[in-house]
């Protein structure tokens, strides 16, 4: 094999497109991953399986729970009291150590941020939106939440308080939006379709029924 025709089997790319220079973080990640595999600490398959597991979560899982809560007050009470058990009731496996549901009310709108990194209930919701991990959102959501929400198109009147939840330690959060007007008689499945990823982070309101 010539120098110009080696097949790169001594390292695996971090991403599909290998034509851009690695950032410092990506280079460090690759080096650490290689060391863990070469040292026999974990196998490449275990790392791949964990990444696959991390991406199994989906906002639709939380949407199913919230839609159930909108139609079933007993379920809602159980979800607010113990979100993991309420997830299990619907066959949803949440592996977060502690999962908490915060309910929006006519008096209070809630939103979530992790100012220190990007803590997020991944097993329930999947990977966070790109804005959620951005430094701009992480620094501004606690400082000027109303302005941030307006930039998302959500105008919360001053008569409604805003509670920002810094997900900085061991708890992970799901926001339960209020059920929109005009949804009487809709099925759970139809209701779940109104509940978007950003609405369970508190950066959007549910879709209005057409």
């Amino acid at each position: 094999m010539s120098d110009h025709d080696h097949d790169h089997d001594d390292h695996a790319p971090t991403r599909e497109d290998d034509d851009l220079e690695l950032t410092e973080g990506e280079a460090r990640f690759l080096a650490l991953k290689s060391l863990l595999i070469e040292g026999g600490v974990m196998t490449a398959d275990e790392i791949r399986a964990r990444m696959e597991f991390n991406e199994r979560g989906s906002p639709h899982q939380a949407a199913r729970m919230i839609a159930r809560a909108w139609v079933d007050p007993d379920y809602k009470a159980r979800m607010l009291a113990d979100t993991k058990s309420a997830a299990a009731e619907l066959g949803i496996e949440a592996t977060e150590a502690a999962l908490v549901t915060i309910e929006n009310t006519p008096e209070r709108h809630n939103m979530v941020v992790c100012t220190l990194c990007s803590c997020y209930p991944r097993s329930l919701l999947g990977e966070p939106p790109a804005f959620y991990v951005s430094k701009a959102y992480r620094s501004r959501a606690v400082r000027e939440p109303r302005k941030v929400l307006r930039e998302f198109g959500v105008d919360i009147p001053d008569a409604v308080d805003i509670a920002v939840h810094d997900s900085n330690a061991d708890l992970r959060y799901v926001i339960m939006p209020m059920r929109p007007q005009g949804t009487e008689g809709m099925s759970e499945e139809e209701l779940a379709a109104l509940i978007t990823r950003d609405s369970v982070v508190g950066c959007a309101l549910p879709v209005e029924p057409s």
Partner: protein
Amino acid sequence: MSEAEPSYAVGDRVRILDIGKPGHVRTPTYIRHKVGTIERFCGMFENPEDKAYGRWGLPPIPLYRVQLKQDDIWPDYDGAPGDVLEIEIYDHWLAPAGETT
């Protein structure tokens, strides 16, 4: 062990400390020295400040959610007077609000 028992009850006024600890701590700078109210006791958790460095983080330590008025965090906060921030703080980063750091 006294340090493994919750020291604060819901409604207690607390000051968030700056204990000067370096490394993987979970109390952001912006909230240190601020005063708020215990919103809930979250349970006992392995200390992430130890776990980050290969230790077990035992015994578990109490974790609370502290609610603070935005106006008490940012002097020039632009919002409604009822706006709040809630944040998770471990027991050893708290003192009764009456005590100075």
